[in-house]
């Protein structure tokens, strides 16, 4: 809003130290999208209902629409733009892309970051654990199934295991 004095804070964003000034009432979501031009973080409701705006703060997934930007001071924030290692995609990004886990792709950044958090805590999660971990993120396109499969395949690859997706996941049952 005009007339508000901007406040400047410093935090670590996707591995880089940054400083940014913004109106103090802004949410982290707004600061990321509007003041830092990182539009990979999406919004679905801006009320904490859909999980679309999830980012990692100090390694934990939070809803950026419910966190004030000012509260990011001194913390480590990771968004979808920081998930790949340079040009090399994170295994989750690779499997989400390859297996059709991203249809419209609008919810994908949130799912990817929450899935990354899960695999850090639990490198070999069961299907039920994946469902539980992703239960705060809504997807209207996929029915979640391709997302589970992408998480499972990425987890196997991150553990260094060979894993083939069952034929029925790609072609249907015989």
């Amino acid at each position, binding site marked *: *809003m*005009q007339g508000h004095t901007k406040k400047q804070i410093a935090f670590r964003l996707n591995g880089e130290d940054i400083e940014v000034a913004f*109106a103090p009432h802004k949410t982290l979501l707004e600061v990321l*999208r509007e003041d830092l031009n*990182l*539009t*990979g*973080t*999406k*919004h*679905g*409701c*801006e*009320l904490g*209902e*859909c999980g*679309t705006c999830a980012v990692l703060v100090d390694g934990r997934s939070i809803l950026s629409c419910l966190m004030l930007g000012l509260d990011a001071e001194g913390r480590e924030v990771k*968004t*979808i*733009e920081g*998930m*790949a290692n340079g040009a090399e*995609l994170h295994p989750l*990004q*690779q499997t*989400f*892309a*390859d*297996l*059709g886990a*991203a*249809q*419209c*792709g*609008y*919810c*994908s*950044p949130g799912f990817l970051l929450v899935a990354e958090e899960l695999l850090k805590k639990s490198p070999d999660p069961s299907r039920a654990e*994946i*469902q*539980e971990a*992703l*239960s*705060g*993120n*809504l*997807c*209207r*396109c*996929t*029915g*979640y*199934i*391709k997302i*589970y499969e992408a998480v499972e395949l990425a987890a196997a690859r991150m553990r260094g295991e060979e894993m083939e997706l069952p034929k*029925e996941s*790609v*072609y*249907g*049952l015989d």
Partner: protein
Amino acid sequence: MVKNLKVVGKPFRKVDARAKCVGQTKFADDIVLPRMLFCKILRSHLPHALIKNIDVSKALALPGVFAVVTGKDFPIPYGILPVSQDEHALCIDKVRFIGDPVAAVAAIDEDVAFDAMNLIEVEYEPLDTISTIDEAVLIDEPRIHEYGDSGNIHKKVSLEFGNVEEGFAEADLVREDTFFYEGNTHLPMEQHAAVAHFDSDGKITLWSSTQTPHYVHRALAKVLGLPASHIRVIATPNGGGFGGKSDPFNHEVVVCKLSMLTGRPVKVTLTREEVFYCHRGRHPILMRVKTGVKNDGAITAMHFQSFLDGGAYGSYGVASTFYSGALQTVTYEVPRYKFQGLRAFTNKPPCGPKRGHGTPQPRYALEVQLDKIAEQLGMDPVEIRRKHLVAPNSITANYLRIGSMGLGQCIEKVVEGSRWNERFSGWDPNNRKLPFGKGIGIACSSYICGAGLPIYWNNMPQSGVQLRLDRQGGVCVMCGSTDIGQGSDSILAYIVAEVLGIDPFDIRVVTADTDLTPVDLGSYSSRVTLMTGNAAIQAAERARELLVMAVAEKLGVPIENISLAERRVFDVENPEIGVTFAEAVVLAESKFGTLGTVGSYSPPRSPGRYKGSGVGPSPAYSYSAAVAEVDVNPDTGIVVVERVWIAHDIGRSINPMLVMGQVEGSVYMGLGEILMEEMVYRENRNVVHKFPSMLEYKSPTTMEMCDVKTYLIEDPDPNGPYGAKEVGQGPLLPVPPAVANAVYNAVGVRIDEVPITPEKVLRALKDKARGRIGRFGPAAIPVVDWPEPLRVLTPSEGGDGSEMPRVAVHG
């Protein structure tokens, strides 16, 4: 027969998938332009009122406000259908639902725009409201609109194919049932957003999250008074559509006007609450079905009546009304058929097309009734369906031409997969194979692969594709189609790559830009793969021909010996003799000049000639069968769907992985509709949206989504590209009735009203325990003075598709 396919049928990654997984895809709200202003739209808080005065002076005086517009800035009405041009970008003299747009502001940022919006003073004179179908039928005044068939009835339809009374007389059993399917909404994860930029040349560009840029283009030309050639509409990738971004929207018109007034780019992004008001979702439909059958389950006649609660505007509603009666005949043989449909105006957000447009509701009624009929006849619900399937390559009683028909195979797969015969125990509740509370149910369906006719009448193609080949060997495919997540951009790349023998990722795809791409009508009616696919094949084959001629000449071999594969153009008899694809392009450009080809697609003419025959025809029909397995807790009424087996007749999968994704997504959306999703309204006038938020509008999370076992039936259709049919919408249709039939199998009560909530299950169980009928659902339909039906002789009666002349009444 097509052979040795290299791309078609393979699970390639989508061409836009990586961008979506790294956050690089630019959705409409991600667009930021220098000097961009923000728009907020003031919406009516009253459901029905006259606008007496609007004072914008305080808003205009607020620092940072650049323009304020009201209804008087938009005198020209618009609407998606030519017969329902009943919307204004901002209401002029009347508001018709809570959420109707009244005024709009362009300001330096969103916060200032919001403050300015709240400074606009509107003086209303409230009017009585119409909130239900019953009220619309009974109460003529006040009229919500000054057009329509009468009072608050938007449209009445009455059609009869053959003599249904004769059919009922022949029947061994005639059943009449009443059903209600509550409305629900698309709930795309991305809120609608648009950016308009009126540039120094006096031309306007609109980026918008729309499924139908071509129709938005037409609407803008009409409403803004600019030549269409000065308007460019670019559909940004849609963050989910499901039908909800298929109308031209007021916010799209408003930002264009505000940009024209201010000379600066203007953005609007709707809030989630506003998305609920935009709606255009599933019509609530009350239905009465009367069906006559022989003892073997053969249908002798069907009379279907539907009553649609249309909300406050026309939208696609006339088409929705016809669709609610069009596809009943496409699944099982229905030799005589009568349809009566009515759409009411009510003071609620307008309804329109949602995945399955107008057909999941009647499909629910039909499939649940068929289950009841099977019980009465003592037949297995699988058998009653399997025995009476519509014949492939036939014409239905209402003149829809069936091509390939794989429903028999679909049924076989889900019956086998679900071990139906081991688990379905017949109709005797005392002789169960599954324990009480566990149940299994089946339903089938069919859907169009694109509408036979365009929304506005014309003789031009419905889809166009343009190919450009450059001398570096680059191929660019341009098409007006809009990727809403279903993968339509990828389908273009796969098909062109298949024809030209290159890799799909060699191809650049440019879509959904009315300046750059030939017209495709849009992502609706499951038309895109079939229509753009056929257009792409034609364009690519024309390019292939040029390459083949040039290379044949160079190699000195007959043109029929030239083949394209693995990025090479070569002699099939001596495969080592040939040139690279890029060299072939150089040869062809040297011979023919700059290389570009076009392809287009128009659907075949439908055999129907009667008035109303425009809705229902399609180049092909897809088929689906589903078995649902449920667990119903008789103490709480909670229904858990544990698994769905679904088989879909896809014709041929252009990409099986994307087909699987559409099937799974359809099951998910069907599950949401049958178990929890509903657009409902509160207060005594029943017009305030009960919960316009994602928290309270319940939709399935990972915890509610069921296991899905999918079968793809590949029986290529001659009208589909490589035989492909649709998959985006059809597989939703059998899910709600399969679950309802499984609930009956589990606990012996019929829930004839969607969604099946625990309260309804408990009410029905309690009624049953008290010796009443174990059923929850509507009892009556409104008494309506239907017009005399248009009578059409069926094909088997020797009809030619035209209506019979009405008997002249002499005074």
